[in-house]
């Protein structure tokens, strides 16, 4: 492997230009602005190009084949992805279990999993949620029991993205039922999806895509060395990296796509001379502009290396609420065209309004619903008394 450039040493704007140029030149145009979760076969070409460039893992350290980007550069990279409409690959291995293995894994785990994840040989899906432990993750009921050198897993996971094209999963399961608190006695385990006893059932979403699966574990035996971190310490491991994720999820780029669709249609229909429409459009546009002001404030904190306070949840709440309101307006101005399936044409402009609308729905649900986020803010930011 050749010597990697030190991206962090670059000027921000230089780096941004370099990223943008690469995306514009190399990203397959037919895959721009896909709202659904992508699947492996369609993304493989792009993954290989990223891999050739050494850019699959912007967040990983250089020693493990990543770009080793600092927070500020990382945000530029993500920003340019969203700006150009670069879809996320099935990248849980890169964004999530990779960094966890780098932080908590054994040397052997690192050497085995990291290169194969980077090359695309191993594709990962996350097994956290359960039918009765969605917002309330600490209530999970899947179990793993030690049996000699193996762990025997039983239970089920749900809302597992891309499980049907993944090769591996990492699950949180209960390994100690006697623990004093619900958050204790949980472990994080890597599971090869070819292991006996695993059944995968794809679940279709309201947009018509099988974007997630239900995964059943029936006496699934995995080697004990598949444990990541210490046994019964999985809660800490699984919850690592969360505050940066809240920042990323709070980026106003995502709803901006919906805003652009509104602008396209409004222009095509001459709605910018309708003051009633303009009032609503501008109010929503300003929600995003102002979100960006707050986003930048948090970004500056991250760049300074400060830990983000729990009020970073504000970004996600505001972002997702605004995104939904934007797609509500989009459907409305689409009128009859807004309730027809597929890409519709508006005097030259095109939009798949329903897909925009559908994919904005779970924004207030996943990653901790907006209600949960408000509970957290109430307790840890406003310090209001617990609602008993």
């Amino acid at each position, binding site marked *: 492997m050749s010597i990697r450039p030190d991206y962090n040493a670059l000027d921000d704007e230089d780096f941004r230009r370099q990223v943008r140029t690469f995306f514009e030149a190399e990203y397959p145009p037919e895959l721009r602005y896909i709202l659904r979760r992508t699947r492996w076969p369609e993304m493989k070409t792009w993954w290989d190009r990223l891999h050739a460039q050494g850019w699959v893992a912007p967040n990983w350290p250089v020693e493990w084949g990543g770009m080793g980007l600092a927070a500020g550069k990382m945000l530029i990279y993500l920003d340019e992805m969203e700006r150009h409409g670069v879809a996320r690959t099935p990248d849980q291995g890169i964004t999530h279990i990779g960094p966890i293995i780098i932080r908590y894994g054994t040397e052997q785990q690192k050497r085995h999993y990291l290169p194969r994840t980077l090359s695309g040989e191993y594709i990962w899906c996350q097994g956290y*949620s359960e*039918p*009765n432990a*969605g*917002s*309330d993750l600490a*209530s999970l009921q899947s179990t793993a029991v030690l049996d000699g050198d193996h762990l025997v897993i039983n239970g089920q996971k*749900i*809302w597992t993205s891309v499980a049907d094209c993944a090769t591996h999963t990492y699950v949180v399961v209960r390994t100690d039922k006697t623990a004093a608190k619900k958050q204790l006695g949980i472990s994080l385990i890597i599971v090869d999806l070819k292991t006996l006893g695993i059944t995968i059932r794809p*679940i*279709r*979403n*309201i947009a*018509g895509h099988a974007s997630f699966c*239900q995964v059943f574990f029936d006496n699934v035996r995995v080697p004990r060395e598949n444990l990541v971190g210490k046994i019964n310490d999985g809660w800490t491991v699984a919850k690592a990296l969360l505050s940066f994720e809240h920042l990323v999820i709070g980026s106003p780029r995502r709803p901006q796509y919906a805003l652009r669709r509104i602008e396209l249609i409004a222009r095509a*229909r001459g709605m910018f001379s309708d003051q*009633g429409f303009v009032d609503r459009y501008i109010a929503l546009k300003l929600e995003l502009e102002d979100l960006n002001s707050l986003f930048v404030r948090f970004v500056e904190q991250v760049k300074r290396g400060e830990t983000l306070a729990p009020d970073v949840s504000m970004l996600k709440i505001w972002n997702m609420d605004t995104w*939904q309101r934007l797609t*509500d307006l989009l*459907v*409305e*101005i*689409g*009128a*009859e*065209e*807004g*309730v*027809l*399936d*597929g890409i519709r044409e508006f005097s030259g402009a095109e939009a798949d309004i*329903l897909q925009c*609308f559908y994919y904005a*729905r*779970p924004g*207030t*649900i*996943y990653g901790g*619903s*907006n*209600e949960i986020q*408000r509970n957290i803010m109430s307790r840890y930011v406003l310090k209001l008394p617990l*609602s008993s």
Partner: protein
Amino acid sequence: MPDPNRLAQTTTTRVPRIFANASGAAEHLTKLADSVDEFAHRSGGIARIRGLRGTQHEHDAAIWKQMADLGWLGILIPAHYGGLGLGLSEMAIVAEGLSRMLAPEPYNAVVALATTVILESDNEVIKSEQLPHIASGDILPVLAWQEEAGNLDSAVVASTAVAVDNGYRISGCKKYIAGAAQADAFLVSARDGSDLMLFWIPRECKGVLLQSETLADGRLFGTLTVQDAWIPAPQRIAHGATAVAALATGLDFATVVASAELCGVMDRVLEITLDYMKTRVQFGKPIGSFQALQHRAVDLYMHSQFSNAVLEEAAQTISPNTDATARALLASRVKARCSDAALRIARESIQIHGAMGFTDECDIGLYMKRALVLAAWLGNATHHRRRYAQLTIAAAA
């Protein structure tokens, strides 16, 4: 995952439906509602709708026939044309009940919209020939009037009718035609200069092309392209002021009935959601015990009951004799209220259901999609508030 459909079939929560408080002369309406419910369940419920999705069969011909046998297709048709001669209240009850089970039949399009336009026209031959067949379910005409998305003014017509050889040459393109997929005939508006005309055009007529596109709720909108089609003069069902008034009356009637359908969607989805709130446990408690959700549920309930109240007023007030402005005001008021309320209740119901609400197998999504379609069809809330404004602000300003 809990079986979402099991929930949908057997809610224990009852949200008061339209005319639930009816008394005296209107008590027959609650009985009618019960029989529609019973019918909708018996005819296959939501499983039937799931089965029809993705096919070119928008609805079941057999179910349509059964509805005819029950008299529901002739509710607005006077007895001398083979109908029951009842009013919008009865029609609203049937539409609401079918909509609660998401029945895909083009009830409103045929039995309210097209039928009213025919009734308000002045072609006695067409009336005596076709109305009995509509009531008996043997023929399904739909109205093809709209030409541009978002433009709900039925007097704005680019399609042309030119008088030739004992008939008319008609050209034009009509869009967003509900119920077109299995329709037998189209009522088409066209213009000869300043004269607006309405024609009865059979589906198999030469020069007529029908295309279908899929709606969010799996039903279809038709696009009717008419190119130099020759229509004999007796098939002109109205023209001039009569045609204009027939269209306006038909559209207002259908707008009220669509509002009733929206009431069916919102009340039912709210029941399902309230049931879910009572059974779904998170953090060791049913989620319905969380005050923030409780207050939101109360707001949704209020929106449902406001919708119902306005619907009742509109259905009870509007008849073919109602003054056109008063009728338009009420129709716009109820459609604006019901469109907003149904979308809001459906959206929030998805949120309350969490990730499950985002799955196709959970019925909530189907209700939301039906709400989307009904809210957009015949003018969305903003359109109707603006129509209301246009009709009233001259007075205020």
